[in-house]
């Protein structure tokens, strides 16, 4: 009998469990171990690597280890934020998978005592030319909108990339940003022997039994159907009540500590609470409010029913807590208490059905060393979609129409981006979303980035670029980074090449965050993202929160006829790993190395220019290169451009094509008053005037190459995704 294998534990892990317990675990205990010792909960293959991330800084209020990270925003307030993945559940059931992903990350932020004020989403799919992909996109986008919209949390930004390696294994990462009074924030540590453990929120049903280990840690395969009954259902209405209830409980000072129930349900929440507090804990499953009678103890302990929270409460305050839950029409019950035993005891109507030392359960799982090996060659598919004869104009239109570059209006117009009355720049309006924070008389900017294709070319350089791009996006709205969160989406770490990608990527993240002085305060790891058809692109998704002081000087303005245009920064454009190279089917390993410091200097210069109000039009050069960035600004503003990239070519002696479509970190396009732009020069950062805003043509010359397209054509190409993405199987709204 090898129940432990069925549950995803290795024989060695099982033996270790028996050794620690001095006996074989019974059913309940084994189920609990199998979840907390899963990759998802124990970070078996990533924890050692994560130790190297910079996590300290003067503004850090809470770092890794808490439900979410938090940074000080002044005036006694903090911004809490975290990004989390819900990849496998979304591949199985896109609508509910994405919806519950949003619900889960919201609860992590709520558990800190914060009120969520914004969501961002980072999505990866296969090319939209298959019905399955369109079906996934439709479900995921509706699911994210459904949950966030119903909760009254604005979804203000995000990104969507379409690449073949994600075809069978889409990525759904959601980032939540919340605000809290720093002195009212709670940690998830149980304390006070004799204090009561209160479970409140939705009733506990058979949702996602084993979901954490089955859905979140195993490679997807044909056996999918068998997993399907473990789909989790989200109820944003319940969570909306839960949010207000938590806010009121904390404002009344009724809680000792608070924890959300996520993956591994009660087992993980109660276990982590006891572990963090160095206490023991008793949970009586007979006291848990159930949606279905006759649930077994192990089912109750591992159920992933959504919209539930766990609190530690002093006995004298229990009645008030239960009363507030009743006011908010949410179920609640005392289901156990904090002990000094150091044990996690499971009882059923007072009778013990399982006992595990908290330490063994939460910290006992072995952490593995990886044995990394650099892949010898490019292992990902290449597809040629652009004909060789295509001239620069055709190439630009083809880039603007590329699903990963084209406008994502179709998606973000399905998200409420204005509820909360904080939104200064919503999705599509500027390089980063900007939210007003009157509580501390300033604003914050949030961005999320991660180009898996470039990380696949070079995990170290690619991850540095993703991090720098976040900071660059923030700079374009005048914001300075305060903290970073991240979600590491990778394949099977037991494979040497994946292990190498993971290690190099985390090294790149550390290097970039150190250089930027932006500590990593939280994140999430999603491994085993591969299917029989191969691994995904290694995809670290970086989320960044920054601050600015005058919303009115936060960029995002359209450029005006007559504005001068400058290219700013050390960008050395190269086609390696670029969108154009992808369309030519010529992707391969390697990216040109680029020093971080000069990029940081350019970021600082741009931030200053925007903050001062001197420059209102700034964007960073990213997918599709300089020509694409210019075209996007022209489209956004409704006025054309006439530019010559000779200065870029002279500086880096690159080809005209490199200058037009090459990619790399450290490039910005700024537009505005000519003198203002000239004043930016002579500060150690390259600033080159390349042209002016003019007419209804996009006209960009680069040595022998030149782009000349009508603004209207460019607009049409850029808007072409909307029509291509509509699914043939639109989900019915319930």
């Amino acid at each position, binding site marked *: 009998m090898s129940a432990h294998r069925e549950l995803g534990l290795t024989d060695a892990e099982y033996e270790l469990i028996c050794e620690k317990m001095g006996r074989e675990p019974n059913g309940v205990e084994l189920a609990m171990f199998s979840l907390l010792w899963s990759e998802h909960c124990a970070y078996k293959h990533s924890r050692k690597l994560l130790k190297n991330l910079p996590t300290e800084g003067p503004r850090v209020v809470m770092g890794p280890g808490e439900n979410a990270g938090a940074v000080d925003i002044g005036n006694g307030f903090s911004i809490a934020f975290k990004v989390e993945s819900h990849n496998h559940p979304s591949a199985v059931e896109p609508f509910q998978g994405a919806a519950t992903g949003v619900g889960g990350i919201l609860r992590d932020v709520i558990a800190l005592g914060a009120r969520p004020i914004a969501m961002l989403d980072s999505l990866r799919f296969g090319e939209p030319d298959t019905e399955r992909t369109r079906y996934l996109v439709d479900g995921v986008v509706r699911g994210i909108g459904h949950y966030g919209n119903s909760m009254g949390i604005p979804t203000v930004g995000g990104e969507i990339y379409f690449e073949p390696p994600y075809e069978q294994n889409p990525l759904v990462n959601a980032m939540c940003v919340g605000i809290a009074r720093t002195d009212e924030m709670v940690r998830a540590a149980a304390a006070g022997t004799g204090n009561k453990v209160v479970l409140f929120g939705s009733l506990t049903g058979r949702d996602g039994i084993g979901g954490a280990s089955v859905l979140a840690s195993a490679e997807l395969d044909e056996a999918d159907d068998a997993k399907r009954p473990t789909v989790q259902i989200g109820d944003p*209405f319940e969570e909306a*009540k839960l949010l207000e209830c938590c806010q009121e409980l904390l404002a009344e000072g009724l809680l000792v500590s608070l924890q959300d129930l996520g993956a591994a349900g009660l087992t993980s929440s109660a276990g982590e609470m006891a572990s963090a507090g160095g206490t023991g804990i008793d949970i009586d499953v007979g006291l848990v409010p159930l949606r279905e009678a006759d649930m077994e103890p192990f089912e109750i302990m591992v159920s992933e029913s959504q919209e539930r929270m766990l609190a530690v409460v002093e006995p004298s305050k229990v009645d008030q807590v239960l009363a507030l839950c009743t006011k908010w029409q949410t179920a609640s019950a005392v289901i156990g208490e904090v002990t000094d035993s150091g044990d996690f005891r499971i009882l059923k109507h007072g009778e013990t059905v399982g006992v595990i030392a908290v330490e063994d359960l939460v910290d006992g799982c072995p952490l593995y060393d990886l044995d990394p090996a650099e892949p010898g060659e490019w292992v990902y598919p290449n597809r040629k979609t652009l004909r060789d004869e295509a001239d620069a104009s055709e190439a630009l239109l083809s880039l603007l129409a590329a699903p990963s570059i084209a406008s994502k209006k179709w998606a973000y117009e399905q998200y409420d981006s204005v509820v909360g009355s904080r939104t*200064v720049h919503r999705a599509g309006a500027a390089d980063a979303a900007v939210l007003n924070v009157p509580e501390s008389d300033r604003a914050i900017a949030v961005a999320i980035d991660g180009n898996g294709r470039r990380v696949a070319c070079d995990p170290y350089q690619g991850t540095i670029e993703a991090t720098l791009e976040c900071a660059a996006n923030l700079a374009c709205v005048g914001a300075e980074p305060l903290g970073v969160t991240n979600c590491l989406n990778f394949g099977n770490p037991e494979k040497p090449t994946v292990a190498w990608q993971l290690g190099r990527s985390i090294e790149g993240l550390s290097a970039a965050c150190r250089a930027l002085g932006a500590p990593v305060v939280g994140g999430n790891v999603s491994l085993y993202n591969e299917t029989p058809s191969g691994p995904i692109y290694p995809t670290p998704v970086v989320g960044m929160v920054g601050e600015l002081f005058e*919303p009115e000087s936060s960029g995002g303005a359209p450029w005006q006829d007559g504005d001068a245009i400058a290219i700013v920064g050390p960008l050395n454009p190269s086609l390696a790993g670029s969108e154009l190279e992808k369309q030519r089917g010529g992707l391969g390993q390697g990216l040109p190395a680029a020093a971080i410091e000069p990029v940081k200097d350019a970021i600082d210069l741009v931030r200053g220019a925007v903050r001062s109000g001197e420059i209102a039009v700034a964007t960073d050069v990213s997918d599709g290169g300089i020509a694409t960035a210019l075209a996007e600004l022209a489209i956004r503003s409704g006025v054309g451009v006439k530019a010559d990239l000779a200065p870029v070519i002279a500086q880096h002696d690159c080809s005209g094509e490199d200058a037009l479509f090459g990619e790399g970190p450290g490039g910005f396009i700024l537009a505005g008053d000519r003198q203002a732009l000239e004043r930016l020069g002579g500060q150690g950062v390259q600033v080159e005037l390349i042209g002016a805003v003019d007419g209804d043509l996009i006209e960009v010359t680069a040595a022998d190459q030149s782009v000349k397209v009508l603004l209207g054509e460019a607009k049409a190409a850029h808007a072409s995704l909307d029509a291509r993405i509509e699914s043939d199987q639109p989900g019915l709204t319930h």
Partner: protein
Amino acid sequence: MMVWGVLQFPGSCDERDALNACQIAGGGSGENARLVWHEETDLSGLDGIVVPGGFSYGDYLRAGAIARFSPAMNAVAEFAAAGGPVLGICNGFQVLCESGLLPGALLTNEGTRFICRQGELVVGDADSPFLAGLEPGQRISIPFKHQSGRFFAPPELLEQIEANDQVAFRYAPGQNPNGSLNDIAGVTNEAGNVLGLMPHPEHAVEAFTGSTDGLAIFEGPARALAGGAA
């Protein structure tokens, strides 16, 4: 000074936004607006009511179907019958229609999807205190955001609404986002003291959002009291 009550149901989303808009309209002191819990029945001391947007009771069954039975809504019905100004926004509009305080109903958008975008409304001919600061034909820019915003009324009712000049707002030509009949975005009751609209004026009262066109609607009743054109 006009004192506002903003209803709060389980699942309301925009109640704080509405509260904020009322406070700004009242000069920003904050004293002139408070939340009204859905179980409250005593509206004394309140001069105006906002039934805010959101997803009361999750919009389950039908948007507004459950919320309209709340004790507070009974009190609002009396308040409205006595001529008190009542503003329903989005879900609040749906609640007011469900409870019969406003004519018509709101159906799932023609495109079935939730949509959120900035758009333009044209002020109608309705005679309502909420329109005291706006001219018929004037255009205002405020956010459209809803999934069930398609205004519907049977032909004879629709004729009545038009004949009595009960149309407060229409979507600007070409901007109807949901298939509403006659581009109707907002209507009043016959007396004009109750106004419901799908778009969100409460999200357009501060300059940083890009438009302050929504403020006039919240300032209207005070203006009307002060004898402004109404």
